[in-house]
């Protein structure tokens, strides 16, 4: 395992789709290569931050227009 082959396998490593042998090979490389370790750890953190992020509140005018649109559509379908 080297830096180039690690990137090729990175997607499956992050998604835990690799078999044990390849995974062990990656993790051995990570103990020796600081650059790859930073890339892998910050990639995981990127996923975690986005996954945990809460959406901003919906602006009230946007929310009201959404509910208005729902009401109007029903009214058109069933005058």
């Amino acid at each position: 395992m080297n830096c180039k082959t690690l990137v090729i396998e990175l997607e499956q490593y992050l998604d835990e789709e690799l078999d044990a042998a390849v995974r062990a090979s990656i993790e051995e490389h990570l103990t020796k290569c600081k650059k790859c370790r930073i890339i892998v750890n910050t990639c995981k953190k990127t996923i975690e931050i986005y996954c945990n992020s809460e959406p901003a509140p919906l602006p009230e005018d946007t929310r009201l227009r959404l509910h208005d649109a729902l009401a109007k559509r029903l009214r058109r379908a069933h005058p």
Partner: protein
Amino acid sequence: MLSHPQCRFAKTLCALWAAHSYRMNSMLPSAMDEQAMSSPKINPVPQRQQIPSQVVKEDEPQLVAAAQSGKLEAFETLVERYERKIFRLTLNITQNREDAEDAMQEAFLKAFEHLHEFQGNSRFYTWLVRIAVNQALMKLRKRRPNQVSLDAEVDTGEDTIPREVEDWGPSPEDRFEQVELSGILSEAIGELDPPFRTVFQLRDIEELSTEETAEALGLSVPAVKSRLLRARLKLRQKLTRYFRRSDNQ
């Protein structure tokens, strides 16, 4: 009960839904078909399915069934539960406020009109996300017809390996207020090209599987994987601007 008293159309909706439900129930079935790094430390992979904010509430199937049987309050609850997430999705994809709002509206309207077609084979939210992403992509293609080709060839070769990498400080997200962090995440994803940000949005924010993402976007599974890798690496790099380790960490 509707939880938002300011929804001034609630009563109208209730009355119309009751009429709609009565008519639908009185129809023949055929007519209903309309429609850190001093010592090597490898962080664990985030267990997304265990993160509370992303867990679909257990009452979703009951709410969907109630909405399908004509209970407007149930559909209203689903809209209120997901409207923020769907707006973030359409905004991240379109990168245009007006288009995002239109796409969100159209997504909920389509979901409402086609609710009887939802079979429960997937999560309702996954079904809703697929509708919303299609609406958002239609808006994006209309505005930038020559720039949005999700299935164009992408280079996933050696240029994906950063030449220099900077480490992040501990808990970087905690260094920002929620609103500020939200802006940073939104800005970073907006800097990605549409094929990358769309795949990232579906896989890592909406938590669709690789297969569900491929199906929703009309891509092959390998194409989803290669775009996702590029998107994750690019976002990691962009976030380094904000999250890099400072001198005193």
